[in-house]
C-alpha cells in the first residue's frame, strides 16, 4: 500500500510537469512543434550541438579505451592513479573550469597574438564549430565514460581473452577489433550515450563562452516565444529518451542473439 502510494507520488512528481508543459504547448491550437524546425537559429544550434556531441564521444572514447586497456592489461599499478584522475572533473565545478578556460582563451587575440599558440587559441573559438567546447566536454565526460567502460572491463576477463586471441595467432589490431571491442560493446554504448546526453544538455560552459548550442538557444528564445521554448525542451527530452531506448534495445538484442 505504502509502496504504491510512494510510486504514485514519485510518478506524479515526474509526470505533472511534463503533462503541464505539453498542455501548455498545444494550448491555443497552433502547431508549435511544426515551427521548431523552421524557427530562427534552431537548425544551426541543433547541428552545432550534435556535431559537438559526436566529436566529444569520439574524443572521449579515443582517450579512455587505450588508457583503460593499458591499465587492465599491462600496467595494473597505475589503475588507482587513473581512477583518481578520472574523478577530478567531477570535483572541479564547471564554473571554475570555464573561468579558467576563458582566461586562457583571452590570451589568444591578446598577449599571444600572432604566435602559433595564439593562432591555435583563436582558431578553436570559431563560433560555427567551437573546438574549445569539444575539449572542455571531453574533460567533463571523462568520469562517466571511464566508469562505464571500467565496469565493462572488470565484468569480463579481458586479459584471458586477449591471451587466448594472441595465442591463436591474432595480431594486436585483430585482437582489438574482433575480441576486445565486441566484448566492450555494452560499455561503449553506455559511455557514448552518457556523453551524448551530457553534451546535448550542457549549458553553463557554452553560455559563458558565448557559443550558441541548443540549450543556449533555448534560453534565448524562451524570452520571446515561451510556447516554442517549452516545446523544444519537451522534444529534446523525448529525443534523449529515444536515444536511451535505442541503446538498451541494441544491447538486449546482442545478449539474446
Amino acid at each position, binding site marked *: 500500500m505504502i509502496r504504491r502510494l510512494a510510486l504514485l507520488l514519485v510518478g506524479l512528481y515526474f509526470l505533472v510537469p511534463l503533462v503541464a508543459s505539453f498542455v501548455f504547448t498545444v494550448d491555443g491550437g497552433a502547431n508549435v512543434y511544426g515551427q521548431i524546425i523552421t524557427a530562427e537559429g534552431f537548425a544551426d544550434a541543433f547541428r552545432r550541438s550534435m556535431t559537438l556531441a559526436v566529436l566529444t564521444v569520439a574524443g572521449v572514447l579515443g582517450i579512455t579505451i587505450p588508457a583503460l586497456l593499458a591499465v587492465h592489461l599491462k600496467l595494473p599499478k597505475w589503475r588507482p592513479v587513473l581512477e583518481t584522475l578520472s574523478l577530478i572533473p567531477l570535483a572541479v565545478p564547471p564554473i571554475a573550469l570555464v573561468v579558467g578556460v576563458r582566461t586562457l582563451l583571452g590570451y589568444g587575440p591578446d598577449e599571444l597574438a600572432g604566435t602559433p599558440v595564439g593562432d591555435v587559441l583563436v582558431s578553436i573559438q570559431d563560433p560555427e564549430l567551437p573546438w574549445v567546447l569539444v575539449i572542455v566536454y571531453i574533460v567533463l565526460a571523462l568520469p562517466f565514460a571511464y566508469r562505464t567502460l571500467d565496469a565493462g572491463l572488470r565484468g*569480463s*576477463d579481458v586479459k*584471458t581473452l586477449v591471451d587466448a586471441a594472441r595465442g591463436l595467432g591474432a595480431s594486436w589490431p585483430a585482437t582489438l577489433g574482433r575480441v576486445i571491442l565486441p*566484448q566492450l560493446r555494452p560499455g561503449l554504448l553506455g559511455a557514448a550515450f552518457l556523453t551524448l546526453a551530457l553534451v546535448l544538455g550542457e549549458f553553463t560552459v557554452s553560455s559563458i563562452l558565448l557559443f550558441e548550442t541548443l540549450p543556449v538557444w533555448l534560453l534565448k528564445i524562451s524570452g520571446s516565444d515561451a510556447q516554442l521554448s517549452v516545446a523544444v525542451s519537451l522534444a529534446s527530452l523525448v529525443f534523449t529518451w529515444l536515444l536511451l531506448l535505442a541503446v538498451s534495445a541494441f544491447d538486449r538484442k546482442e545478449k539474446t542473439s
Partner: protein
Amino acid sequence: MTAVELRGLHRRFGDVTALDGLDLSIEAGELIGLLGPSGCGKTTALRVLAGFEQPDRGQVLVGGTDITGTPASRRGMGMVFQSFSLFPNMTAAGNVAFGLRVRKVPAPARRRRAEELLELVGLGEKAKAYPHQLSGGQQQRVALARALAIEPAVLLLDEPLSALDAQVRNQLRDEIRRIQQRLGTTTLFVTHDQSEALSIADRVGVLRAGQVEQLAAPDELYHRPATAFVAEFVGTTNRLQARRVSPDTVEVLGSRRPLAGTGDAEVLVRPEAIGVAADETSGLTVVARTFHGALTRLTVAVDGREVVADVPSPLASGLVPGSRVALTLGDVPLLAA
C-alpha cells in the same frame, strides 16, 4: 626426439621468484604433467613457453629453434585456460575457427575444420551455440577444440579442469588424454591436482620454488620419490620416528631396515605399506576409520601423532575406533624425511 626444451629459466615478479633456473625437456608426442603447490612457478613456466611472459634469463626451444623472443601470436601453440576463455561474441564454431580466420584460411575450409574438431570433442551438435548457452565442461571442450584447430606445435593446458565439478572433471580428463594420444600432440599440462597429473601424464614434473624437483613416470614418482618433498606432495605419506640401531640400520614399527646416517631419523612410509592387526596387548588404538571400497583407511595414534594405514577392507572388518592394534611395516625401502 626432443620437441620442447626449457633451459635455465629465471623469472622474478618484484620480490617473488617464480622461476629459479628451471630446466625441462619434452619429447615429441609426450604429455608432461607439471605438478606443484600454488606459487611453485608451474603456471609461469607454461606462460613463458606460450610467450605471454618473458623470462629474465634462459631459453625456450621448440623443435630445436630458439623462440625466446618470438611473440605469442607467432608461436603456433594452442592453449586452454583455467578460467572460461571462449570469445562470448562468437558461436562455438566461430571460436574454433578463430585461429584459422586470423591465418586467412578460406571460410569453407575453416568451417569444415571447426565441424571436424567439434565432432572430435563430442560437441558436433553445438556448433551454433554461444558460450553462455554451454555448460562449463562443454566450454572447456570447445576451448580444447579451438586450441587444436591450429594444429599447434605444443598444446598447453593450464589447469583446464579446475573450474569443473568432479564427475565432469574425470570424464574430460580421460577425453583429453584420448584425443592427445590420437593426434600425437606434444602437451604440457599444468595442475595442482596430483591424481590428475598421475592419471594422464606420460611423465610428471614436480615443481618446487621455481625448479623441477623430480621428473619421472607416475609410478616411479610414487614408488621412488627422489626427495621428501615429492613423497609428501604426491600421494599420502606418514612421517614415522625411526630409532637407529647400527650405522646403516634403523628400527621402525618393530622392523629393522637399512638406512644410512647417524642418530635417530624420521622416515616416510606410504599408508599401504603399513599393516594393521588386532592386538589386545598393544598400547596403540584406532582413532578413525573410513571406508574406501576395496581398502579401508585406519588412523592410529602413535606417540602422539596420527598414522594412516590403508588395509584391504576384509582385514579391517573388526577394527573400529577404540580397537587396540599392532602395526607392522611392509617390505618397502625407507626414505628419510
